[in-house]
């Protein structure tokens, strides 16, 4: 059995005590981020780690990864030398961070001679982390859009199961970039006001930043009540921008995740929904759940608390879910008012007591990627 030893998170919610307070009280909201559209500066809601302007640089991303890992070591009273044969798995929808500075510099063609001859590419952050920890061995970086770090977690669990590694650090990484924000502006997927998952008047997603990490192990190096039970990942090719609106692909990945764990739908305690507040995405998710469950378990979205952290959301929302249950509740889906008439079961609207159980976590994204996995907390 794969044990989830612990997790940490940097997000707009701040440190662990503040996170629990915000989630318990159902209070959070985005900051702002400016971008230029058609020559005009427009301000969008954005859940930011901090408000300082900061161009994306390798050193900054390294520093965030180190910061979240340091917090995990402190929380677990561990140090890197305590873990032998540990793999690193990193999921991000923007693994091209490593190329960003180089390409931006190269746009000014005259300056190319000043660019260092140093291999870029998606794997460099995990590699540098390995180096700083003085570890060798498996590391992988995943770019599967919004399922990136969820897929990284599932593959880490498979490598643990296969005996290739004894422990795994799984990171989710998403830092704001002008390119990402402007891309979503072009696609007209962003809300200019609030993120309202599953609400009939939802108006789109709000992006967020998060850097998160969980430690998985196949040996209980620290007592933990949390275990990874299994999951599934698939690709539906209805459209490159998301799942089939009829919910069939989403239903399939949830059924496959249940089959992988040997659980029946009624044995789930709650579902952490993807819940982006996208018009088509949320409907597809509700339709998918209706196909799988006779009665949909209590479900909630964490996007109103930290925003849609894209490839980072797999691990970031896992950490938040575990923290809430550790604190004895699942959080309300804030900003939700009414379902569309087609649907009958609303998300959790008030904080609900919950101290243990089996939780399904769902993630869907561009590229037709759907991922669903199940974790358990035993009392």
């Amino acid at each position, binding site marked *: 059995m794969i044990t989830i030893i612990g997790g940490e998170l940097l997000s707009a919610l701040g440190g662990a005590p503040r996170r629990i307070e915000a989630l318990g009280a159902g209070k959070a909201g985005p900051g702002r981020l400016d971008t230029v559209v058609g020559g005009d500066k427009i301000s969008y809601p954005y859940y930011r780690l901090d408000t300082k302007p900061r161009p994306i640089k390798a050193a900054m991303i390294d520093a965030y990864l180190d910061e979240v890992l340091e917090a995990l070591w402190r929380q677990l009273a561990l140090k890197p030398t305590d873990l032998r044969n540990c793999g690193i798995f990193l999921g991000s929808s923007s693994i091209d961070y490593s190329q960003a500075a180089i390409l931006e510099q190269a746009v000014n063609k005259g300056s190319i001679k000043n660019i260092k001859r140093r291999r870029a590419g998606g794997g460099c952050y995990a590699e540098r982390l390995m180096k700083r920890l003085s570890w060798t061995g498996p590391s*992988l*970086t995943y770019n599967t859009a919004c399922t990136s770090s969820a897929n990284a977690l599932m593959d880490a669990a498979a*490598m643990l199961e*296969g005996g290739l590694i004894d422990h795994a650090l799984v990171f989710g990484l998403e830092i704001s970039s002008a390119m990402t924000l402007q891309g979503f502006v072009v696609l007209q997927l962003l809300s200019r006001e609030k993120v309202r998952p599953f609400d009939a008047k939802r108006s789109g997603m709000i992006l967020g930043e998060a850097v998160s990490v969980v430690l998985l192990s196949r040996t209980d190096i620290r007592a933990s009540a949390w275990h990874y039970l299994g999951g599934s990942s698939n690709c539906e090719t209805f459209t490159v921008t998301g799942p089939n609106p009829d919910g069939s692909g989403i239903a399939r990945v949830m059924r496959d995740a249940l089959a992988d764990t040997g659980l029946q739908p009624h044995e789930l305690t709650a579902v952490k929904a993807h819940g982006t507040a996208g018009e088509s995405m949320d409907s597809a998710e509700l339709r998918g759940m209706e196909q799988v469950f006779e009665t949909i378990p209590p479900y909630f979205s964490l996007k109103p608390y930290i925003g849609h952290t894209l490839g980072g959301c797999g691990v970031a929302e896992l950490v938040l879910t575990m923290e809430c249950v550790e604190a004895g509740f699942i959080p309300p889906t804030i900003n939700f008012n009414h379902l569309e008439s087609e649907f009958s079961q609303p998300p959790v609207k008030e904080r609900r007591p919950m101290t243990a159980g089996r939780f399904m976590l769902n993630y869907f994204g561009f590229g037709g*990627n759907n991922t669903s996995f199940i974790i358990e907390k035993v009392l």
Partner: protein
Amino acid sequence: MIYIHAIGIHNTVPGEKLPDLTGELKSIGASNRRSDHFIQLAVIGAHKAAEGHKLWEQTAVYMTSGQGNTAVFNRVCEALRIQKNLPKPVDFINLLSNSAGFYVAAHLGLHGKNLFLSHHHFPVQMTLLTAQNDITLGRQKAILAGGVDEWLPRQDLARKLSGVSETTALGEGSNWLLLSSQQEGAIATFELTGKWLKEDELQKLLTAEVKNNQSSIAFARRVPAAKAAGIMSQYPEFKRYNYEESCAYYETLSFYALNSFLGGNKKGRLLHIDASAGYYMVMVVEIIPAKI
């Protein structure tokens, strides 16, 4: 050990100009709508591996690349910084390197797991290690695993991103393997030791390999020539497999090395040795002779 059922090779040395793939795409019945060169490369290479095989629709797609879809990233950078334009929707979507995996799955009618993986030192080996582990555990029945790298017209930039010398000739390729746990119908076996080997562990592996007197050795382009020559003189029992003459450099060339050996021989066993950061990874493929 897992089995290789098919290979797909698309390997070119463009020279001065980006190759036009339109005709080839048309010949395989693939659409070029909303795609770009990187995606088209992926679809063509994967199609070649899948051709003639009735793929199970849950076949997974595991894809890797040295730099991913760099051309579109560069195009979006230029739009933002020089033309002061927003990115085109299609370019923004294709920025995600896993969009290529989507188009591969769509072209081949697949609905299985679809990954885009990166690794700084050993992208090919780590992708195949993931595939080998998933197949061995029974988590996947069949996987199309491939490496895709595109040639960039801005060669100076491409060389800097790849960290290779100013004189390195660059090529492009999309090379795929159809992998499965099923022996029936397989053309070769595949085995990869997950452990990164130190020098003494490599020597131990090679010494143990001497008993297989039909073994050939291929070296990844990163293995220094002197090191490769040293191994060949230390182990005269092995034949050197030279694939380098038929290709120029790209980061997932190791896929091409395996595939060209499998495609060009009726029997034999190949050890592919790659080196980075003071460690080695060794992939072994052995051709299963065709039954007469």
